């Protein structure tokens, strides 16, 4: 029987990066996962609401967790930022019954269901890079990546703070490396894979943000990568949509295709490129498709 999750794609995957949502939905049955929609779930606030109104941030996120609890499933995310915001709220209220009581008071007053701390939040990468997940991939008889040289880009908020995230060593993550190798790709290792992409401040401080994304883009390029892969649509926007701007500002060329994690899995499993919608990327992925043999 398929493992059911309350599916929280996050706003960016639902709107500007629809290709990620579509690919994840197509991938789910291949991984023996059923994605149960969360129609009442709001934005997690992406750290911005926490920065403006901390109590509101906590209440909104607990309301999301409560919807998952009502559905009876743990939450599955496909965004680093959503994962951190939801896990942080979950940890705060699970560790402090008085705080949970206060938040529930607000929820009930607004007509929402109270939360009793009954769900966990996990990212697709975490689920699929475990032995159980890799076994599901194996069952699909992956066509493979044909030696594609992939630079894993983790970004920040799926790794840090480890007291909230805790899936793997934040300084030596290996989950994407395991996946890339299991799917017949080569890992292009580089120092910038755990540095910030700059996206949270890209609209307010573009110049600083593009200096930050340079570290990872140049690192992946210098490691001889055919492409980067990221588990976060915000990192994807910074690395893909803003890549030409970063080239122009930093006076260099990267020419680095950037894949969403489910797209890399989709390629290895033979998913149709129509579903994965590479045409929505700013940096063409033709070279990647050619290497994989699509």
């Amino acid at each position, binding site marked *: 029987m398929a493992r059911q999750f309350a599916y929280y794609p996050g706003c960016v995957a639902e709107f500007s990066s629809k290709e990620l949502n579509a690919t994840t939905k197509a991938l789910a049955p291949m991984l023996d996962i059923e994605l149960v929609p969360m129609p*009442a779930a709001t934005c997690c606030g992406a750290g911005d609401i926490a*920065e403006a109104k901390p109590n509101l941030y906590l*209440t909104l996120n607990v309301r999301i967790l409560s919807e998952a609890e009502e559905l009876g499933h743990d939450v599955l995310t496909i965004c680093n930022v959503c994962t951190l915001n939801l896990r942080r709220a979950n940890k705060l209220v699970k560790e402090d019954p008085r705080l949970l009581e206060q938040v529930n008071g607000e929820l009930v007053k607004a007509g*929402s269901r109270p939360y009793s701390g009954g769900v966990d939040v996990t990212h697709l990468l975490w689920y699929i890079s475990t032995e159980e997940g890799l076994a599901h991939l194996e069952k699909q008889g992956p066509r493979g990546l044909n030696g594609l040289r992939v630079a894993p880009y983790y970004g920040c908020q799926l790794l840090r*703070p480890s007291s909230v995230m805790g899936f793997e060593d934040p300084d030596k993550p290996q989950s994407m490396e395991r996946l890339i190798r299991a799917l017949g790709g080569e890992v292009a290792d580089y120092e910038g894979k755990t540095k910030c992409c700059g996206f949270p401040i890209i609209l307010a401080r573009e110049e600083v943000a593009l200096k930050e994304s340079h570290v990872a883009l140049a690192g992946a390029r210098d490691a001889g990568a055919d492409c980067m892969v990221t588990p976060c649509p915000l990192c994807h926007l910074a690395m893909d*949509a803003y890549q030409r701007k970063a080239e122009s500002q930093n006076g260099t060329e990267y020419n680095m295709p950037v894949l969403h994690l489910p797209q890399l899995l989709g390629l290895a499993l033979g998913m149709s490129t129509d579903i994965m919608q590479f045409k929505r990327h700013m940096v063409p992925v033709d070279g990647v498709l050619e290497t994989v043999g699509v």
Partner: protein
Amino acid sequence: MPVTTFKIFRYQPDAVRPEPFYQDFTLEHEEQLTLLDAILDLQNEQDGTLAVRYSCRSAICGSCACMADGRTVLACMQQVEDLKQWSGSDTVQVDPIGNFKPVKDLVVDLDPFWEKVKSVKPYLIADGPPPEKERIVPKEAMQRLVKESNCILCAACYSECNSLAADTEFVGPAAFAWGYRFAGDIRDSRRKERAKLYTGPHGVWDCTRCMMCNERCPKDVDPRDAIEKLGGIAFQEGRDLHDAGARHAKAFLLSVRHGGKLNETMLVPLTNPLKAPLDLPFAVKMLRKGKAPSPLPHKVKRHDEVKALVKNVKETI
């Protein structure tokens, strides 16, 4: 007894060899040995010119932060054998902390750090003459400041701050932890001024949320959380439109209030109303790739609950 090779960053600008280099030292030592004690052993027994800054050896003075195998640590808190277990190697590489200029070996020039700490006015500014006895503060009010009060100014947070690496003028995590320590103190009378002081250029809104400071702080101060709290104070003090960073956060609030989900397309002009029209070519490219979704609110089910929460939830920062 274990034997460890220490590959240490050397920089002696006044010596015969003024360029930085790495030097290997071998040390046979007891199982229990901190990195600081190892460095001091090397200094005492192998090379008296090896420079390191330290004082208390007890994780109180904050002097001995350095990088060990690429991670910032407080040398006096860090066991050598734990480092070797983490790296799977008998060699430990030791570097000065990052985002600073080295002065000599592991000693860096901390002046920019101290200037930034000073810039946040890290002291209580109370109104009126001092009372005859101490100012009594409820326990709960001080408990809110416990984490920030534990900061020992070791600069471990500053060392790997991603914002600082891209913008050397960023005020930085430790200084803002001290900023919140006083902006959040009910005895302080300068909350509004502090909100303004901390949210200018290179301030609170320049934090890129890499979470490195929370990860590295040896005293669990969680400086990023303090920066977030300063954002909350800025909003409470009416500084929700004064900076692109604040308007960015405000746009999220508006999105949630009007629909529940983020309205990405409206985020751009709301954050930067003057710059957005100049960025039209980029906007067109985004539009052509389908990356500029409808600017209308994205409604979630039971949005009335969300509106009620936005209206009712009171901030206590």
